[in-house]
């Protein structure tokens, strides 16, 4: 029976009259997303995810209990909502009703026969009987047939304790199987163990098709089918192939819904069922999926997506679902280490000694080279609380503003561009908003690889009929796949984003498609008029820009019309927008386009940056930038500084500090000597590796805090053990501004959680901070940051998660921003002149390299490379178009040299028509690939975000496949030496 829990929104209610006594106030609406228990399986999905006014609910009676449900609810779901469980096997509430198992049959007054309750919609006044002798017999007979072809090894079965078939056999009272077990059966069917994380044992399959439907409806990959028919029916990955040879992306949706042991996690087969679970937030991408960490004691045996998670709604990807083994990998460094110079072996020391050593060095450096010669880099993978502490340490203990974060190299233009135009440095929507989107424009993002769970939600909406415009030099999976086809794929030349977005705006203005009323009402009209004159100029017409962007003018015109007139249009973008010399201009161009067409401030529309790392939004929010205190408030503001000075008991520098790029440049010059890096690997992820390495070698005190000896740590003098997301309490903030709890499920392997390490270092530096628990850090953040004012751990425990701004004006958080008014007041149309990048193709470097990510690996790969995810992507390869390959005599799998003016590296080639001629692509998940040896130090004009996405290169075949580039050889040698320093 459902009880009103604390999580229930006070504005809405439970639907059941029996509960009405417990109501706090007379309910007005029923909201399926807040009023139901995510721990229950309601059998079929809600007919609508929208709240329904109580007055519009229909009433029916089930086994004499009255229940009120929204129209379209199945009888099964209505019964479960009334606390009556109807037996079922093929039904689960993440999938549409299927009606195949025949276990959920019921009797309905006035109807003939025994309708399946999952496929029968509830109707007003219906009287349903879920239990009587007749249905009991039918159910028992059905069950008897299932069991006649099922192994009877329950006691030794991996699903023992978590098997719906077993449960249902118990529920229907099956006592014998009259058919015997000698007939034709599938008991000898062979197990498929090809997937590293789960097994497929068809002998235990009851062919309920849940897995097939989950692959289709939830994940949208369609890798599974039922092959053959009748008795021969079986679940088939691909064309009756092993899972690993099929299109399967190992998201785990099939394993999640399987009611038997047929699809089981290998970890559960090895270790048995969990004894308890803790709800936490995934530490991979910016989607921020909620997971249950299924535990045995203090060991995580499985991660399962949590249905109550508002970002993922019960779905997962191969990284979050399965790739958590890195947390206990043997490479973890669990003891603090120090050394005088990087040519020396590491010495394991106590935390005290490491803190003192680091603090003495930092103080010495500051004495010799000045206060500004040291700084810190916060982590986009650590929690908000930890990030906040690192920037606090820099500002309060180092006494300068030399703090930056990895967002510098990814979404800093988003912060700048959206702040300028809308007034807030964040995406405008919730992920749920995609359910109302009619036209999606995906620019420079590859959601099915980099944000897979959201990618699946997009694909779901596309299958429902939404239109799709993809703007990308490469044919990403969304362009053409099962049941998804882009209406327009605008294959632009890398580096011409702004020419493209201007042409879009030009067409809309040129053809009079702009939303005149909302512009007049909501935007800065003066700025708009200036902008309109600017954008109307012929130089921005698609006919003119075609020469740069390579996109046919007619396609741009058609896409612009679709975006402007297709209903709710939403823009989703990624690093293909920001990582350019004109990243900030492009973000502003996107914002202009949304304002121009009134696609802002309601569900289904908006500007949605898909943030890369789990907490990159949070690290930005927490004041990780050299010019901004938490909440994006400029350091030069006296009033803001006063608040922090009072709270922290220090005097703050009013001048902005160094950005990462400034730090590295100053280090190369010899004026910047000390750096505290928490959970970030600049040696691998930042552009122009040669330059980064030179800067790091010049450091006199490099303090690295990480879970592994990452590439940066190889240049460090002090190593402080980091803790994984499983080893600490805290919060992450995802791409939709959602603050979600991270919960400690095991003790830190290095004894201290990251926040505690920062406290220790700060104390040694002479600035003591007092917190007993991260919740106290959040309380301080809330007291100093207006957008976080009403955030606390108590509230997060109650609500599950909160989207900032969360303060007295919007006490329950803000799913959609800029509803009636922009945060800055009037929306600002910024001028976005297209300026071609200086990185041009030449005779020597005739091709353009663009970089990106792949599904199975995450960022620098430090985590995923230490899991079985490498079964899918063991090395970085260079994707090249068949024409370019042929010109150069390159075959698939050949070793090639990739060279730019910054450096060269050797990779294997993957010849694919995903690429357009003249453009090549690679990933940067493996350090030895040296993708960033190639990238240059060009960067965004406003924020210094590096131009990763455009590098002029040459590709040529290497005669000797074993040969590495000069950098790769040096890298291998240096790595060998540094690893050896660990063991001494």
């Amino acid at each position, binding site marked *: 029976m459902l009880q009103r829990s604390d999580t229930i929104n006070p504005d809405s209610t439970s639907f059941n009259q029996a509960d009405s006594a417990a109501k706090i106030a007379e309910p007005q609406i029923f909201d399926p997303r807040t009023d139901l228990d995510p721990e229950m399986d309601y059998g079929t999905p809600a007919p609508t995810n929208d709240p329904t006014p109580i007055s519009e609910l229909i009433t029916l009676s089930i086994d004499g209990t009255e229940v009120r449900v929204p129209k379209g609810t199945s009888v099964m779901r209505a019964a479960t909502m009334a606390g009556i469980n109807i037996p079922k096997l093929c039904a689960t509430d993440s999938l549409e009703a299927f009606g195949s198992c025949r276990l959920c049959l019921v009797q309905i007054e006035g109807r003939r026969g025994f309708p399946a309750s999952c496929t029968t919609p509830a109707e007003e006044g219906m009287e349903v009987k879920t239990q009587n002798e007749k249905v009991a017999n039918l159910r028992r007979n059905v069950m008897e047939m299932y069991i006649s072809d099922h192994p009877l090894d329950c006691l030794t079965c991996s699903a023992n304790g978590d098997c719906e078939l077993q449960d249902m056999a118990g529920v229907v009272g099956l006592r014998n199987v009259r058919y015997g077990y000698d007939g034709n059966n599938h008991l000898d069917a062979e197990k498929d163990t090809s997937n590293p994380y789960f097994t497929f044992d068809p002998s235990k399959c009851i062919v309920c098709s849940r897995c097939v439907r989950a692959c289709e409806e939830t994940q949208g*990959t*369609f*890798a599974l089918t039922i092959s*053959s*028919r009748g008795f021969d029916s079986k679940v088939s990955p691909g*064309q*009756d192939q092993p899972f690993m040879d*099929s299109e399967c992306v190992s998201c785990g949706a099939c394993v999640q819904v399987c009611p038997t042991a047929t699809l089981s996690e290998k970890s559960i087969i090895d270790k048995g069922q969990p004894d308890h679970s803790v709800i936490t937030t995934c530490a991979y991408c910016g989607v921020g999926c909620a997971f249950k960490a299924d535990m045995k004691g203090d060991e995580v045996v499985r991660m399962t997506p949590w249905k109550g998670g508002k970002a993922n709604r019960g779905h997962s990807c191969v990284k979050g679902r399965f790739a958590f083994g890195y947390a206990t990998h043997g490479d973890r460094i669990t003891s603090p280490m120090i050394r005088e110079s990087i040519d020396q072996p590491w010495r394991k020391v106590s935390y005290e000694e490491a803190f003192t050593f680091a603090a003495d060095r930092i103080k010495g450096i500051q004495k010799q080279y000045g206060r500004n010669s040291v700084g810190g880099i916060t982590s986009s993978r650590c929690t908000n609380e930890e990030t906040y502490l690192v920037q606090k340490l820099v500002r309060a203990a180092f006494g300068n503003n030399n703090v930056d974060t990895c967002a510098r190299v990814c979404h800093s233009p988003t912060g700048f561009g959206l702040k300028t135009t809308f007034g807030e440095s964040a995406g405008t929507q919730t992920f749920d908003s995609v359910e109302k989107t009619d036209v999606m424009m995906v620019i420079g993002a590859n959601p099915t690889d980099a944000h897979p769970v959201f990618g699946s939600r997009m694909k779901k909406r596309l299958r429902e009929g939404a239109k799709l415009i993809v703007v990308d030099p490469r044919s990403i999976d969304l362009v053409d796949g099962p*049941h*998804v086809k882009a209406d327009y794929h605008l294959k632009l030349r890398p580096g011409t984003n702004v020419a493209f977005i201007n042409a879009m705006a030009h067409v809309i203005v040129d053809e009079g498609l702009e939303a005149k009323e909302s512009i007049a009402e909501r935007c800065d009209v003066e700025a708009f008029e200036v902008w309109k004159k600017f954008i109307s100029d012929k130089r921005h017409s698609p006919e003119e820009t075609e020469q740069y962007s390579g996109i046919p003018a007619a396609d741009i015109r058609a896409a612009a019309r679709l975006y402007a007139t297709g209903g709710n249009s939403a823009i989703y973008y990624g690093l293909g927008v920001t990582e350019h010399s004109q990243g900030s201009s492009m973000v502003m161009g996107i914002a202009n386009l949304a304002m121009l067409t009134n696609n802002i401030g309601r569900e289904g529309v908006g500007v949605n940056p898909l943030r890369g790392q789990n907490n990159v939004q949070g690290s930005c929010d927490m004041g990780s930038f050299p010019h901004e205190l938490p909440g994006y408030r400029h350091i030069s503001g006296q009033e803001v500084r006063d608040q922090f000075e009072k709270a922290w008991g220090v005097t703050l520098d009013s001048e902005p500090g160094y950005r990462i790029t400034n730090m590295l440049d100053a280090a190369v010059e010899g004026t910047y000597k000390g750096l505290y890096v928490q959970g970030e690997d600049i040696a691998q992820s930042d552009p122009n590796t040669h330059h980064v390495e030179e800067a790091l070698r010049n450091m006199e005190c490099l303090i690295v805090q990480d879970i592994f000896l990452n590439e940066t740590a190889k240049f460090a003098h002090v190593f402080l053990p980091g803790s994984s997301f499983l080893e600490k309490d805290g919060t992450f903030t995802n791409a939709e501004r959602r603050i979600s709890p991270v919960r400690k499920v095991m003790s830190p392997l290095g004894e201290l959680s990251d926040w505690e390490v920062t406290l220790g270092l700060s104390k040694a530096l002479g600035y003591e901070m007092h917190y007993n628990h991260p919740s106290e850090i959040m309380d301080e953040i809330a007291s100093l940051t207006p957008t976080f004012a009403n955030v606390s751990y108590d509230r997060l425990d109650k609500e599950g998660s909160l989207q900032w701004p969360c303060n007295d004006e919007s006490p329950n958080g803000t799913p959609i921003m800029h509803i009636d008014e922009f945060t800055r007041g009037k929306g600002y149309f910024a001028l976005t002149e297209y300026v071609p990048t200086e990185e041009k193709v030449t005779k020597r470097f005739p091709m353009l390299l663009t970089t990106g990510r792949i599904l199975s690996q995450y960022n620098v790969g430090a985590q995923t490379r230490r899991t079985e995810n490498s079964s899918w992507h063991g090395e970085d390869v260079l994707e090249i178009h068949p024409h370019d390959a042929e010109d150069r005599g390159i075959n698939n799998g050949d070793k090639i040299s990739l060279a730019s003016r910054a450096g060269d590296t050797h990779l294997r080639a993957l010849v694919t028509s995903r690429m357009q001629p003249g453009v090549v692509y690679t990933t940067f998940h493996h350090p030895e690939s040296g993708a960033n040896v190639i990238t240059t130090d060009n960067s965004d004009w406003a924020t210094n975000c590096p131009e990763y996405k455009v590098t002029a290169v040459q590709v040529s075949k290497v005669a000797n496949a074993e040969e590495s580039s000069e950098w790769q050889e040096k890298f291998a040698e240096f790595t060998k030496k540094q690893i050896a320093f660990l063991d001494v």
Partner: protein
Amino acid sequence: MNNSQARNQDIVVSAIAAHIEKHKNRPGPLLPILHDIQNDLGYIPDEAISEIASQLSLSRAEVHGVVSFYHHFSTKPRGRHIVEVCCAESCQAVGGRNLEKYAKEKLGLDWYQTTRDGEITLEPVYCLGNCACSPSVRVGKEMLGRVDNESFDELIDELTTVPLDIAPLEGR
């Protein structure tokens, strides 16, 4: 792969492409494409499945699900003639089982096997709708009724005999 194999492969690939192209823009294109390919090539090659899937924005699994659902479709090369013996109720009632047994013995094949010379594939079929004239056998598009062992022999003789085309000796 030798040259003639490569040539055959090219023919197969272009045939598949042509059949897909012909139907891909009509509603419900999958079955017509599969029928055309099978009628043309005698079976549905594996590579056809991935090609159909990508052209119709389906997954390989979905196409495979359809192909494997219908017994009519074969995914392996078969004989030049497909001899289908009806095994459904009506035929069984008038001695169909004997005919099934005889057919297997005569050809030395089990169901779905093909004679070594690649001429004949033997397949069961469940009702050809010719029940009034049971037992029934179908060869290609031709339906035969009241088949017994003798007429089955005649059928096989016919199928395995290639008439010699002797040109008249004119003008000598």
